[in-house]
């Protein structure tokens, strides 16, 4: 039996727009997504903003009813057997909300433990253990309102582990953390995997997905566009090289000119203050550089590098140049 089984999942939101002339707009957040996750596997869900990741996680976590399709977790249906599922899952939506700020961390945990019906005697030992595990040892009696964002996110991890769930859903758990904090957080996730937990993770950080995930599903506009190991996904771009070019305020027409070149597969642009970093995917590798320079048409160009593709480049190719 797989830990997670998702079959032709679909979710449509109906949103009312306009104040006076109200009309209903339908948004297909998840169109057709299927995947399964084995027990103990760390599974990544990647996709651009609005791809439907959070919507999928909400349905997995019994918080949203699918419009069509079905999900089973540890053999239980998320709609018909929601409470059986809830006993076995933990989940986090990235960010700092969702805790009682007026309570201490310990009291937050005590309260959630009571909601899970945990034996108070057991909680007495488990709460300090979890606080230590997420690096909040010694801060447990402070009110959450004085916690930093990272501390709140760690507390969420402790919260979701109170009932020792078998399956975890982590929606962008490292969002907004500083690099060191994010690295420590990833270590916590890896520790959880060694405890044989099944984990589904969404993230926008490709290196994070590459470092953590056994398998990855890339979704776009509510559909699965690829499902493979990180290595397997990279094979999608193994015929390509990446030319990285630093430019300074190149206008959109020039960038479109590059996108239109016959030997260019995909272009992503990262804006960094005054600079832009163009990542051009091409089969021609270094040979493409002179033509690319010509296409840049006298724009100031800084550093130029030709390199092997990474998971991020595979991702960019799959979702068509959006990051």
């Amino acid at each position: 039996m797989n830990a997670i089984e998702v079959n032709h999942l679909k979710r449509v939101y109906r949103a009312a727009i306009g104040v006076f002339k109200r009309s209903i707009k339908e948004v297909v957040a998840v169109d057709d997504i299927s995947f399964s996750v084995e027990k103990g596997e760390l599974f990544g869900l990647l996709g651009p903003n609005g791809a439907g990741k959070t919507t999928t996680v909400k349905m997995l976590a019994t918080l949203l009813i699918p419009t069509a399709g079905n999900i089973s977790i540890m053999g239980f249906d998320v709609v018909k057997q929601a409470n059986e599922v809830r006993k076995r899952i933990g989940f986090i939506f990235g960010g700092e909300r969702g805790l009682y700020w007026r309570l201490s961390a310990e009291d937050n945990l005590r309260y959630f433990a009571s909601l899970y019906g945990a034996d108070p005697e057991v909680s007495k030992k488990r709460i300090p253990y979890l606080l230590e595990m997420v690096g909040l040892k010694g801060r447990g009696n402070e009110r959450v309102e004085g916690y930093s964002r990272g501390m709140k996110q760690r507390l969420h991890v402790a919260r979701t582990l109170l009932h020792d769930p078998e399956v975890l859903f982590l929606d962008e758990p490292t969002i907004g953390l500083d690099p060191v904090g994010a690295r420590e957080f990833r270590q916590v996730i890896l520790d959880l995997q060694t405890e044989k937990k099944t984990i589904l993770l969404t993230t926008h950080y490709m290196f994070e997905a590459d470092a953590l995930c056994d398998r990855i599903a890339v979704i776009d506009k509510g559909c699965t566009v690829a499902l493979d190991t990180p290595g397997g996904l990279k094979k999608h771009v193994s015929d390509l090289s990446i030319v990285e070019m630093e430019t300074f305020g190149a206008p959109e027409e020039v960038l479109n000119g590059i996108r239109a070149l016959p030997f260019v597969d995909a272009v992503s642009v990262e804006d960094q203050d005054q600079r832009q970093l163009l990542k051009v995917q091409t089969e021609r590798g270094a040979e493409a550089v002179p033509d690319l320079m010509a296409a840049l048409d006298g724009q100031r160009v800084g550093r130029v590098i030709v390199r092997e593709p990474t998971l991020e480049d595979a991702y960019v190719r799959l979702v068509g140049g959006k990051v």
Partner: protein
Amino acid sequence: MNVLTKNLRLFWQGTMLSYIALFAWLRPVTYAASKIVMPLAQMLFFVFLGTYATNSNNVDFYVIGNAVQITAVSGIFGVTMSVGGDRWAGTLPYLFGTPANRVMLFFGRAFMHVIDGTIGVVIAFIWGVTLLGLDLSHTNLPALGLTILVTTLSTCALGLLMGCLSLITSNVMFVNNTVYFLLLIFSGANVAIDKLPAWMQALSQILPLTRGIAASRALVAGQGLAEIGPMLLTELGIGFVYGTLGYFMFHWFEVVAKRRGSLETV
């Protein structure tokens, strides 16, 4: 530890922590003010206004009416905050993601306010006796205590229903203030109910507090539990109806939020 004590401890922990977590007045000074000063202020205001306006000497009428009505501070404002507070705390997804028994969860939100409201009324009665000459020497005090408790229960039940409203709309503080002040009149705390127009009297009959206040006045006047028993039972029944309506609304909120995807929209 046997199952019963374990469940009781769980319930106690849950209600106590949710009370602290969600009841935003619980800073010691404001809390003390709301418990000690406010009942006195309300009572003095209506006693002097009432006796001046009606040119009569029925101080007890206003003292008892307002002392009991004070329970609405906990019952309406407190309970609403405790039920609706999860919305602004952003905890609703995490709350509804647990297998917690929803009946316990919902009614647990009101539990501490029942205790709190009862204490508030007792303090108000103490003010009445010490400062406004209320005479309880002919009163069956245990019966008065029971009346206060029952009235607080039924008022908190209305609060639970209001709390569900606050999960759905953000204008609930306005609605709450309105309900509180309407209760000041409709419950008979400050105006004899038989002096109200017929439609207002009809509304009085389906609100909590009305019978609780009437029963308290009767007890202070020397009547016994046997005479006021029917009123207390009806008061309790009214509370039961509001509590049940509240629970169904809470349940409905969860079902609809999961269907619409509106669990964390503020």
